[in-house]
């Protein structure tokens, strides 16, 4: 448990601040004060105050860019833009360190060449989660992309509709995936494949489509022909 983690989480107990943080995260890029004020319907000075507070506690970070396209003297100061900080915050009470445990377990799996066992476990867990989704009431029909999106949102993937599919903005296993990419991304892929099959989502496929800054798994609608 760190003081900075507590400050970050504490800052989000203020409702407007929480809405602003969500707005910036869901926007996915850089947000100006004016955009944030418009999105939340709050007064601009108040929005600026809360955005800066979110920066102070390390949840957002600031970039400065001229948005007007004007150059040279008299074109004004560069606008202050806000985006999500790459910093991770964790608060667990009592103190727990599952991350170190995950890294050690991953190291052991690699040393033993036991990837297949991990993938099988991930697939089974995914199927359980998918079945729970099916039970929650989309009926016998397979869930559509909108329902899957809502479910993956709950799982922390921050899915975004893109064409006939979903891209995942957040990797829930980020630090593990950075240290053990094939292992952690393979595990994640099998988790999602299991979830889709457990939920009866037969018309979509999860596959590896890694790109810098995104989760490595992409969910796409199958071709009908």
């Amino acid at each position, binding site marked *: 448990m760190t003081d900075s983690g507590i400050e970050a989480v504490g800052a989000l107990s203020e409702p407007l601040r929480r809405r602003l943080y969500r707005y910036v995260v869901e926007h996915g890029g850089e947000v100006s004060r004016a955009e944030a004020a418009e999105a939340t319907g709050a007064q601009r000075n108040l929005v600026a105050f809360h955005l800066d507070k979110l920066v102070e506690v390390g949840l957002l970070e600031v970039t400065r860019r001229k948005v007007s396209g004007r150059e040279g003297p008299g074109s004004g100061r560069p606008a202050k833009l806000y985006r999500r900080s790459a910093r991770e915050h964790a608060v667990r009470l009592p103190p727990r360190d599952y991350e170190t445990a995950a890294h050690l377990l991953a190291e052991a799996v690699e040393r033993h*060449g036991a990837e297949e066992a991990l993938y099988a476990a991930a697939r089974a867990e995914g199927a359980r989660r998918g079945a729970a989704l099916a039970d929650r009431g989309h009926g016998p029909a397979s869930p559509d992309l909108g329902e899957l999106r809502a479910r993956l949102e709950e799982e922390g993937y921050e899915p975004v509709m893109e064409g006939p599919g979903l891209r995942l903005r957040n990797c829930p296993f980020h630090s593990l995936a950075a*240290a053990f*990419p094939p292992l952690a*991304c393979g595990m994640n892929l099998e988790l999602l494949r299991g979830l889709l099959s457990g939920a009866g989502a037969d018309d979509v496929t999860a596959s590896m489509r890694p*790109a810098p800054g995104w989760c490595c798994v992409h969910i796409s609608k199958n071709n009908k022909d």
Partner: protein
Amino acid sequence: MSDHHLAQLNIGLLRAPLDSPAMAGFVALLDPINALADTSPGFVWRLRGEGADDATGVRVFGEEILVNLSVWETYEALWNFTYRSDHLEAMRRRREWFTRMREAFLVLWWVPAGHVPDVEEARDRLALFRERGASPAAFSFRDPMPAPSAAPRA
């Protein structure tokens, strides 16, 4: 523009000869993944066999051992290709095609920009890494080392 590039060697112990059905999935990926490497940001060079587009015919480490030797402009360029491109799918499935080796099978080292490493140099770096662990002369993705700083101007 850095005056050093990153050299990369990895070797793989084949589970079966390349022309066996068990290896068909791997063989099918060779051309597309090599083409992807060639067009990836920061790619500099990769080893090819005599008159071939890939290095599958280069068996200097053993009859059943494939060699992959390449040079990249930066550590990030190599990392992004290895783990943040379609190459990741091949990495994920590597146990289908390659037997796990007890010893290190990958080594990275910095070379002066423009230098093309040969397999002897690569073999020495892997031996060094296996013997001494990570050092600026031979390291891995697990223990990245910064590029040597530019030589002071005369």
